[in-house]
């Protein structure tokens, strides 16, 4: 099946606008993707038709809203092919999900001297929560290095794993380079030594089909807003055996069984980890986004994005002094580059004037930028609604800026 891009573009009202008098060309999809009407309308419907606090009321609207929220959970369960719906915890996003694991898994299982392994290409969200644990619990953070192409050096992983390793936490796809990491291999190697693995799927679920049972990962986390869903909602999949043992993350309503001043007992999964009124409208929006993606088909989306990626890569490569960062064999539709030593801020500022939105800077992956000894990169990331015509404008813009800097 081929996809009808013009029809898809009509689903995204935000695309139909001009910036500084030029039509918007949006290539900052790895930061956040735009929302189709199907998602916007689903959220609209929550507030215009059945808004009510969930799991608490006996009245009609509360039941409708609770049902919509729990249906969204089942949608995420099927999307990840998780065995059980109660293994899906709604969070504010990937960052909160990782913080939840660091906090609750850390509280339950980690002691002074224990080791956590991450990689050199991680987003700060998968570095800083563990560094906080280093301070709090005296654990030690170990780092899988990357080669010049931006691929994890798996030989090093073998040496990093030890009897002290309690968790490996790596990105499925690098946000700054687009590298698709060999997570199945990592999980198998880790499990051979009884080490659980967490996968940061923030950059992956919108590009590749994820099956947590086939992967056998212990945790998998992602954000709604990068897969055409709303901001402020994300999900954490965790194996029941871990989640049941882990301490709660936050305390409040919904996560309790009984509360007295003598002591409190906690609710069962998934509610134990969802303190307070959850973002049910966000969850409904996320469910609509998953439906949207499923309807087009993730394989179709991925194939089209690859086509865009290869088209852009070939044209960019022809520009003198082009430097690519991240040339892994397995790569998602993200291109990180610099032209000579033109500062990414300068490139981004001037492209913006042409109506072209790219990301510039360190992409919240400063250790990775240090690895390449650069201040940052210009990153163009593609989504299902981008076109080759837009890429032509990007290329034209990059050439124009390069000439300006002589």
């Amino acid at each position, binding site marked *: 099946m081929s996809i009808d891009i013009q029809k898809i573009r009509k689903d995204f009202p935000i695309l139909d606008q001009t910036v*500084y008098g030029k039509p918007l060309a949006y290539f900052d999809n790895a930061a956040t993707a735009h929302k189709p009407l199907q998602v916007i309308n689903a959220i609209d419907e929550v507030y215009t038709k059945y808004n009510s606090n969930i799991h608490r009321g006996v009245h009609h609207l509360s039941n409708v809203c609770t049902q919509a929220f729990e249906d969204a959970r089942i949608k995420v369960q099927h999307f990840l092919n998780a065995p059980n719906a109660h293994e899906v915890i709604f969070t504010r996003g990937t960052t909160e999900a990782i913080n939840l694991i660091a906090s609750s898994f850390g509280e339950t299982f980690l002691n002074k001297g224990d080791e956590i392994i991450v990689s050199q290409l991680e987003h700060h969200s998968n570095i800083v929560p563990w560094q906080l644990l280093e301070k709090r619990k005296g654990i030690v953070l170990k780092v899988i290095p990357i080669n010049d192409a931006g691929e994890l050096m798996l030989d090093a992983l073998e040496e990093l794993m030890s009897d002290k390793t309690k968790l490996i936490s790596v990105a499925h796809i690098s946000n700054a380079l687009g590298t698709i990491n060999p997570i199945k291999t990592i999980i198998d190697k880790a499990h051979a030594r009884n080490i659980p693995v967490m996968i940061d799927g923030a950059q992956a679920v919108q590009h590749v089909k994820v099956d947590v049972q086939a992967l056998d990962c212990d945790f998998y986390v992602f954000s709604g807003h990068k897969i055409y869903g709303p901001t402020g909602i994300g999900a954490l999949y965790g194996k029941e055996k871990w989640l049941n043992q882990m301490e709660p993350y936050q305390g409040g309503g919904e996560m309790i069984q009984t509360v007295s001043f003598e002591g409190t007992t906690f609710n069962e999964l998934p509610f134990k980890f969802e303190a307070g009124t959850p973002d049910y409208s966000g969850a409904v929006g996320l469910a609509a986004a998953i439906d949207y993606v499923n309807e087009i088909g993730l394989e179709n989306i991925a194939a089209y994005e690859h086509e865009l990626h290869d088209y852009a890569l070939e044209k960019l490569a022809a520009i003198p002094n082009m430097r690519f960062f991240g040339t892994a064999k397995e790569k998602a539709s993200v291109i990180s580059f610099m032209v000579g030593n*033109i*500062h*990414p*801020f*300068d490139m*981004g*500022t*001037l492209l913006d*004037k042409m109506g072209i939105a790219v990301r*510039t*800077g*360190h992409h919240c992956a400063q250790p990775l930028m240090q690895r390449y000894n650069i*201040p*940052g990169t210009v990153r163009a990331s593609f989504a299902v609604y981008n076109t080759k015509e837009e890429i032509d404008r990007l290329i034209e813009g990059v050439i*124009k800026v390069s000439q*300006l*800097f002589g």
Partner: protein
Amino acid sequence: MTINEIQEEIVEEFSVFDDWMDKYSYLIEIGNDLDGFQEENRLDNNLIEGCQSKVWLHAELTDGKIFYTADSDAIIVKGIVALLVKVMSGRTPDEILESELTFVEKIGLKEHLSPTRSNGLVAMIKQIRLYALAFKAKQA
């Protein structure tokens, strides 16, 4: 010339550009021409780190006047830095503290002074004034 006269002169210079491309080319030229920042002053305590770009600012008091030298790793930022130095350097602390920076907005580059740009410029302007306050206190 007073601070305001120099600001007016800059506004005049930029008024010939009706195309953003020409304006930015000129800014890049000014940025490339900025020198005077001594390598020995490229110190961490002179560094103003924005999320997107870095600015270094050094200040010295000579004969009651503050002389600023500055640099940035991004050329567009460096161009604006050069203009700020041109306006503010060689002034007494009082002149700096009483001044109102209006030229950046008038030449249509106000967006670069937005905190959301995170390019170090907002912090640089704050730092210029802090130096003036500090030198004034020292003189008193």
